[in-house]
């Protein structure tokens, strides 16, 4: 399949945000935005959705419940040992439950993210613009197969007008 993309490279986040607005006014579908820093507003502008927070919530809840179940089983059911006059089902569970909720939530969110993004340690970088990990921002537009040369040229001009410092095509 012929999957080339047109990429506009920007050097300032405010210019990038205005460029997104401009492109969307012209009904151009933006496939992705690359940025070295999280920018507020890009996510909403591109109307992206994610289910990752819900997954995190579920992992956290599973963490709380399973840690409580483990603590309850060890210190109440399996080996009930009274110390310091405290009840078996004790309040001090809360500290470990709190810590492990965060741990389980974070760890499994990372794992989910890695699996969904098909990432693994030692994977080769596949960035269209390598400097997007440093000081540049990039807008990626999918090039349609039946896009005429004139349309591509118009798109390039539009990107240049919005302040792109570099425009390139890549796979």
């Amino acid at each position: 399949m012929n999957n080339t993309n047109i990429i506009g490279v920007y050097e300032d986040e405010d210019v990038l945000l205005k460029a997104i607005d401009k492109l969307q006014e012209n009904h151009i579908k933006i496939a992705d935005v690359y940025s070295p820093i999280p920018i507020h507003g890009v996510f909403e502008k591109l109307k992206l959705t994610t289910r990752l927070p819900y997954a995190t919530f579920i992992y956290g809840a599973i963490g709380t419940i399973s840690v409580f179940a483990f603590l309850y089983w060890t210190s109440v059911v399996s080996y009930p040992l009274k110390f310091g006059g405290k009840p078996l089902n004790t309040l001090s569970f809360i500290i470990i439950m709190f810590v492990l909720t965060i741990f389980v939530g974070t760890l499994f969110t990372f794992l989910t993210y890695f699996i969904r993004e098909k990432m693994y340690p030692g994977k080769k970088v596949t960035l269209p613009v390598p400097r997007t990990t440093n000081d540049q921002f990039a807008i990626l537009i999918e090039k349609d197969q039946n896009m005429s040369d004139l349309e591509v040229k118009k798109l390039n001009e539009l990107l240049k007008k919005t302040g792109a410092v570099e425009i390139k095509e890549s796979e």
Partner: protein
Amino acid sequence: MEKQLKVGEGFKIIGFVLIAFGLFTVLTGLLTGDHVRTWANLLLNNYYFMSVTIGATFWLAMQAITQSGWSAAYVRIPQAMSNYLIVSFILWAFMFFGLHDLYHWTHHDAVMHDPILLHKEPYLNIPFFTIRYVLFFALWIFLTQRIKKLSLEEDKIGGLTNFNKIEFTSKVYIFVLAITFSLFSIDWLMSLDPHWYSTIYAVKKFVMAFYHGIVVITAIAIILNKLGYLTILTKTHMGDFARYIFALSIIWGYIWLSQYILIWYANIPEETVYYVPRIMEEYKTYFYLELIVNWAFPFLFLMWNRVAKNAWALLFVAVVLMAGQWIELYMSIMPDTADTHNITYIEVGTFLGYFALFAMVIAWSLARIPLVAKNHPYLIESIEHH
């Protein structure tokens, strides 16, 4: 740019009626023999609105020292709230008539026969207590009014001079608050039970003040926006306010647990005496309600991003959390003073009276100053905030 706030006639009438109702309940309470209970309620409401104001002005100082951009359009709300401190100073003065009804350590005979109170006597005595009250309020009023004055001057002359002066004054104010507000909470709330002490008590009360201060600022911003003023309020601003409330709900829960779990775990009678009436007897409902309303509810509700950016949902959270602060203070004050565990006309009436007074003071103060600090260096960043 933003139009000037006008206080409506209906608002004034409702306000005066509620204040009259509050005054009526307080007088009835005092005349029908419910002395202790009425004084306890007055203390509760005095502390409630004073701490909300302190929390809001602390937020203002925080924005100044961190040079936050997003909040620059909202600095006038806490600045207007700071006027309430002057009213609060007068209202607290009446509390001195009720000292004997509330504070065990003010009784000379009791102190003389009590080694612990005798030991604390150099700090807990009425003259020094009064000096502290006057000094603390004088410092708060002076510093908050100075910040307000500098900000209003900035409107006229512009430039960075006033901005830098506000930043410096805010640093002083935060430093002063750390000491004075802690001691003020210890003086007026913790000394209700002079035998008991907790080293985290003042921290908890401070977090409560900060938490509910933000809640009130958010509520005022949204109400002004709904009334057609402060049109610059966007979803991202509300999201940031909601983030503040969300984060502080966790901090509040953390401090609550820090106090409770250490006392519970150490199980020393002189410390647990505080929680015995609160968790084992009639106050049980309030005990759990305090935790659910102030921590569990905002934590779970504001987790949802869509809710955190919805004006009506945030207003709902604000109303619930204002009730939450009332419950927290009720739990701090009532078991040591009136020992009543039901809510009657005295509780409702006093709160409504104070609430109306607080709302009117803020409305009038806001009406007297421009709603937006037009020469604030970060104003454009705040409006364009995304």
